[in-house]
C-alpha cells in the first residue's frame, strides 16, 4: 500500500472521473456535452486550459465523432478518454461496435440517464442497457469514489493484452454525477505504479505497415468473433485480478464482479446495479435487525455477466428480488432476464421477482425496497417469475 497521503476532497462523481482521466495520463479527449455528463467535459477542458493536464482536447461536433476520434487516437497508439449520457450514447451506437470489434481498449464513462421518448433528462439505466450487446465491458458503480477507482482500473483491464476490449464505466445520473461526497484522490506516483503507459499491440505504424481493421468472410469472421467472446469471458478474471491489485496499492476493494452484502443464510436477496445500492444496504441492515433473513447483491459487472458468481451466491436463496432501472421491452428488466438465464439448470433455483423502478429519475425509497424484499420473503421456490412496475 502507498505510504503517501492522498488528497481528500468533497467532489461529485463527475469531478472524480475527470480527475481519474487526468491521473491515468490520458493524452486525447474527445467528448460532446449532454446532461448529466457535461461537467466531466467541462472539468477536463479546464484542467487542460489551466495547464494541469497535458492532453489534446479534440473539438467534435457529435458523440459519433467523439468516439470515432478516440478510436483514431488509439489507432495512433495514444490513450484516449470519452464520456457521454443517454442520447449521446445512443448516437455512438454504431461506433461502440466498431471500437469493440476492432479491439480498441478505450474507456468511456456513461452517466446513466433515460432515453427519449418520453423525453427525460433524469436518471435510469436504459441508455447503458441498450448498448449491452455492443461488445463493451460494462461496470456499474455506486459512489464517486468507486467511479474514480474504476476508471483507473478500467484502463488496466482494457489494455491488458489478454483482453483488448473497451470498458464502459457507468455511474448514475444526478445521484452520483451531481452529488458531492468525500473522495480520496490518489497521488500521481501511486497511479503511475499501478497503471503503466499504454502498450498497444498494433497501431497505424508507417515502419511496419498493416491494414489494421478490415473485412473478412465466413470462417475468418467467425474466428475473430470467437476470439472476441473468449476475451470478453476472460475479462471476468481480469476484473477480479485488477481489483485485487488495486486494493493492494490503494487499500480499497469493491468485491470483484458482484458484491454480496449480508447474504449469509439469507432467504431473500435483492439484486441491483449502481447508486441505489446505498439505500438497499440500509434497508437490509434494518430488516436484519428485525431478524429477517435478507441480503443484497450489488452486481458490478454487467458484461461480462458474472454467471458463476451469481449461481454460487443464489444457489441456496429462496427468492431473488431484482430491481431494474431499465426494461427490455417485450421481455423484462435486463438484469432480471439475464439472471434467469444464468440460473437456468440450477437444481432448485430461487423464485424471481422483477421490479422495474427508478425510471426517468423516479426515487426508489427504502419503503419500496422493503416491499420488494417482503414480497420475496413470502415467495415460494419454484413460483413463476413476476414483473411489476413500482414507480406508479
Amino acid at each position, binding site marked *: 500500500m502507498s505510504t503517501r497521503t492522498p488528497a481528500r476532497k468533497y467532489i461529485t462523481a463527475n469531478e472524480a472521473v475527470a480527475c481519474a482521466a487526468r491521473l491515468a495520463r490520458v*493524452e*486525447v479527449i*474527445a467528448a460532446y456535452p449532454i446532461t448529466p455528463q457535461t461537467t466531466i467535459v467541462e472539468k477536463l477542458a479546464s484542467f487542460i486550459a489551466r495547464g494541469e493536464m497535458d492532453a*489534446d482536447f*479534440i*473539438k*467534435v*461536433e*457529435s458523440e*459519433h*465523432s*467523439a468516439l*470515432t*476520434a*478516440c*478510436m*483514431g*487516437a*488509439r*489507432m*495512433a*497508439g*495514444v490513450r*484516449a478518454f470519452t464520456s457521454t449520457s443517454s442520447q449521446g450514447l445512443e448516437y455512438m451506437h*454504431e*461506433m461502440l461496435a*466498431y471500437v469493440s470489434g*476492432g479491439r480498441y481498449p478505450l474507456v468511456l464513462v456513461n452517466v446513466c440517464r433515460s432515453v427519449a421518448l418520453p423525453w427525460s433528462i433524469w436518471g435510469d439505466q436504459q441508455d447503458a442497457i441498450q448498448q449491452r450487446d455492443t461488445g463493451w465491458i460494462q461496470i456499474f458503480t455506486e459512489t464517486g469514489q468507486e467511479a474514480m477507482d474504476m476508471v483507473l482500473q478500467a484502463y488496466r483491464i482494457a489494455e491488458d493484452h489478454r483482453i483488448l476490449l473497451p470498458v464502459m464505466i457507468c455511474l448514475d445520473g444526478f445521484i452520483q454525477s451531481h452529488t458531492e461526497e468525500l473522495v480520496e484522490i490518489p497521488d500521481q506516483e501511486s497511479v503511475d505504479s499501478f497503471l503503466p503507459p499504454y502498450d498497444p499491440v498494433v*497501431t*497505424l*505504424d*508507417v515502419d511496419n*505497415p*498493416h*491494414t*489494421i*481493421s*478490415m*473485412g*473478412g*468472410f465466413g470462417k*475468418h469472421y467467425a474466428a475473430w468473433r470467437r476470439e472476441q467472446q473468449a476475451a470478453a469471458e476472460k475479462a471476468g478474471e481480469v476484473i477480479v485480478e485488477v481489483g485485487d491489485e488495486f486494493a493492494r496499492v490503494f487499500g480499497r476493494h469493491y468485491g470483484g464482479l458482484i458484491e454480496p452484502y449480508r447474504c449469509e443464510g439469507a432467504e431473500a436477496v435483492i439484486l441491483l446495479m449502481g447508486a441505489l445500492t446505498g439505500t438497499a444496504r440500509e434497508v437490509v441492515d434494518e430488516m436484519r435487525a428485525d431478524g429477517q433473513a435478507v441480503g443484497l447483491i450489488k452486481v458490478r459487472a454487467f458484461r461480462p455477466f458474472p454467471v458463476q458468481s451469481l449461481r454460487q451466491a443464489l444457489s441456496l436463496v429462496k427468492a431473488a428480488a431484482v430491481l431494474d432501472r431499465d426494461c427490455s421491452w417485450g421481455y423484462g428488466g435486463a438484469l432480471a432476464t439475464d439472471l434467469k438465464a444464468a440460473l437456468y439448470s440450477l437444481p432448485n433455483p430461487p423464485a424471481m421477482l422483477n421490479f422495474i423502478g427508478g425510471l426517468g429519475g423516479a426515487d426508489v425509497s427504502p419503503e419500496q425496497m422493503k416491499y420488494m424484499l417482503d414480497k420475496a420473503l413470502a415467495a415460494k421456490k419454484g413460483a413463476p417469475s413476476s414483473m411489476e412496475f413500482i414507480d406508479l
Partner: protein
Amino acid sequence: MKLKEISREELFRSSYGCAGCAAVLAVRLTLKVLGRNCVCVVPANCISTVSCYYPQTPFFVPMTVMAFAATGAALSGISAGFRRRGREDISVVGFSGDGGTADIGIQSLSGAIDGGYKFIYICYDNEAYMNTGIQRSGLTPYGATTTTTPAPCFETESKKDMLRIVAAHDIPYAATACTSYPLDFMQKVARANRVNGPTYIHVLAPCPTGWGFAPDRAIELGRMAVESGFWRLVELENGKLRTTHKPSRRRSVAEYFAAQTRFRQLSPEQIEEIQRNIDRRQAAGQAFSATG
C-alpha cells in the same frame, strides 16, 4: 511536378475494382505522392469494398476501414494521436466517396475541418452510391439516372457544391481535380500535404459501371467532363480561388452525355437547358465546381 518525378512505387495495387475504375486510380496516384510516410482511412464505399478482405490488402501503407459517416472524425483522432507522439510528419489521408462526403459524412467532415487538425480528405466523386448498386447521392448531377432515380425519371436536384461548403469553413487548402488530369491532381495532393491543417480535395472519378461506358474510356470521360465545363479544375488557398487548368478545347455537354448511358433519357431540349446553365454560370464566374 514533372512526369519523370513521379514515383514508380505502387503503394495501392491489385484491388478488386472494376476494370477501368478511376476511383482506384485516384488512390493509386495519391499514394504515389504521399509515399510510405502516410496512413489511410477508408469508410464504407467502393474502395474499401474492393480492397480490404482478410487476408488480402492492396494497401502497402497502414490503413483502416471506417464507418461510413466517420471519416472526418477518424482523421482528426489519428492526427491528434500522431501529434501527441511527435509524429506530425506522417500524412493522414482519407478516401471517401461522394455519398460518404456530401451526405452521411458531411457532419463529421465539417466538424473535422473546424477541429483544425492536419489531414488530407479526398472525396473521390463517382456521382452516386456505387458500392451498394448505383443509388443517387447528393452529388449525382441533375439529369442522371440511378437505381433510385430510374428511367423514365432522373435526378432532379443539382449537385451540391462541396468546394463552396468546405470554403465556408475557412479551410486553408481545398481543390477540385479529375483523375484524367493526373499531374494537376497529384500537384494538389502535394500542396495539401504541405499544409499544417485540414485540407480537402474533390476528385471526379468516372465510373464505367455506374455511368455506363466501356472500361477503356474512363480517362476520356473525365476529359470530356472538364472540356464541356461540366467539371472545373480549381484550387482554393487561403480563400483565393484559382483555376488550375483551362481546357484548350470546348466540347458540348451533349457530347459528354452521349458518351455514357446514364443521361440517355434526357431530351435535346433538356440537354440544351443544362448547357445554358453551364454557360451562364461560367460567364458569371459562379460556383466553384458544380454544375447541373
